[in-house]
């Protein structure tokens, strides 16, 4: 697979971009370095959502909760105990994955909208606990000024840490989506009944997908703490879940890197248009409508189609995109 990855058209441009991003703090102003780091963190959360929704076909609408749980687990360990930072960092994704396991265990028993409703309810329950449990979580005040180990003390080192963790996470996620597990997950998305008929335990497979995706959402949560040194209850609120959902929609569900692009678009809009008007969401809304009408496969899906071989027939072509886009970059 490694050879094929190197030979694929997207590999060298991606390496180039990565090298550029690596040197970014050397010439870019601090503010831009921060914005880029924010995009990395959020896009990891969005990609973990894409894993269950885009590739798994599960209606995991309140995915942001696991991002928040990962962030809070790390933040609480750092703020309330003297645990080594490494332990706190590892605890984030593990707590998120355990939460995903518990919530997912109930949810995979249901399908589609019922799955979504239960997932939103159980997720909101966790938000309510964090929001109300003032003495432990700080409620709506959150936790601020979280201590960081010395190697993460400067904004630059935090940037590098986030970039490295993001890169490793992406390689892992890509490998997983290309594995038999990932293939089977997409087969379940397309035809769960047939999967049962060939001996696949569909529920167990979906649960495993949720656990893996929530693990990565937890990593994103830890990176958020590294970047912001604070957590607040909004991290678990449904609005944030909706936001990362829109990032995936904008970027493209069936593409691997689509959510990164979607995140970059939204974070930039909020930062640069939001500076001039608080109605930046209006522009986002219009953009979203345009994308849904004209680029149903998302921006990344559209770019892939431009870069791919010329279509033979539009109907077949659409299916080819879905099939190849299912695992392509």
């Amino acid at each position, binding site marked *: 697979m490694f050879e094929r990855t190197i030979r694929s058209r997207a590999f060298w441009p991606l390496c180039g971009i990565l090298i550029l991003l690596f040197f970014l703090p050397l010439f870019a102003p601090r503010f831009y370095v921060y914005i880029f780091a924010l995009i990395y963190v959020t896009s990891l959360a969005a990609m973990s959502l894409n894993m269950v929704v885009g590739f798994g076909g599960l209606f995991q609408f309140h995915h942001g909760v696991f991002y928040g749980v990962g962030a809070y687990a790390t933040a609480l360990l750092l703020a309330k105990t003297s645990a080594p930072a490494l332990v706190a960092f590892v605890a984030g994704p593990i707590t998120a994955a355990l939460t995903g396991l518990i919530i997912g265990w109930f949810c995979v028993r249901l399908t589609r909208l019922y799955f979504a409703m239960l997932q939103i309810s159980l997720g909101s329950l966790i938000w309510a606990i964090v929001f109300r449990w003032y003495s432990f979580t700080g409620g709506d005040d959150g936790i601020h000024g979280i201590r960081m180990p010395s190697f993460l003390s400067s904004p630059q080192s935090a940037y590098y840490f986030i970039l490295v963790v993001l890169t490793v996470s992406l390689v892992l996620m890509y490998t997983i989506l290309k*594995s038999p597990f990932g*293939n089977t997950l997409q*087969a379940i998305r397309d035809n769960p009944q047939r999967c049962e*008929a060939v*001996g696949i335990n569909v529920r167990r497979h979906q649960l495993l997908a949720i656990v893996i995706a929530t693990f990565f959402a937890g990593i994103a949560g830890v990176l958020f703490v590294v970047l912001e040194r604070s957590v607040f209850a909004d991290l678990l609120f449904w609005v944030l879940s909706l936001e990362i959902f829109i990032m995936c929609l904008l970027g493209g569900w069936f593409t691997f890197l689509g959510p990164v692009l979607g995140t970059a678009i939204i974070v930039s809009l909020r930062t640069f248009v939001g500076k001039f008007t608080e109605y930046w969401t209006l522009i986002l809304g219009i953009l979203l409508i345009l994308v849904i009408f004209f680029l149903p496969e998302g921006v990344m899906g559209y770019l892939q189609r431009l870069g791919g071989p010329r279509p033979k027939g539009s109907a077949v072509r659409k299916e080819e995109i879905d099939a190849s886009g299912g695992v392509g970059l």
Partner: protein
Amino acid sequence: MLRVESVFKAFDDFMAVNGASLDVKKGEIVAVIGPNGAGKTTLFNLITGILKPDRGRIVFKDEEITYLPPYEICRKGITRSFQIVNIFPRLTVFGNVQVAVLSHQRKSSTLFRPAESLAVEETKAILEVVGLLDKEKEIAGSLSHGDQKVLEIAIALGNEPELLILDEPTAGMSPEETFGAMELIKKLAKMRGLTILFCEHDMDIVFSIAQRIMVMRHGETIIQGTPEEVRNNKEVQEAYLGEEHA
């Protein structure tokens, strides 16, 4: 090998399967026939666990499988094809069969190895047998109907079943395709020593390849016997063959 002991299944007030019994011995080719709505597909759904019977028992290799979920029944060695094409339309032909082969090898949850290098030979061997190897890279949804029906069978073979259940394998096929599919089924039974249970509307096909035939009407079993016994049975002549050959 498979024994269905008077199973019942009702949908609201409609008795889809009303005390049907069936018995399939190892290595046999058994056909289930009956008019539309006789409950053939429902019976197959009961055997493969997609539906649960209200009453009755289904035994496979001396083990009761009546209430097992579909994926466990598949792992016991029963797989099926579907009457209405039921494939993975967005995967390639190769990918369709590979999903089943990986499941059979218990590798569906392998996380850190590329799927494209796993179970390749086994998958290609199956495509070779059914004659789809030259189309392995095509998207399954773009195949002709006849090829999709053959792919149905290929997916079912991916689990190396002992008992293969085919629900109207030639439905909607052209006469040539039908002939090809029947040759394939005979070949499979011979080469792999498969036990095959199928249902089919075309009586010529049924009487030419089935070793034993079970006749259903209104969800009940009228008779199960050799083609000769079925042909000579008065009740069958009245109830079923009579209608068609009158």
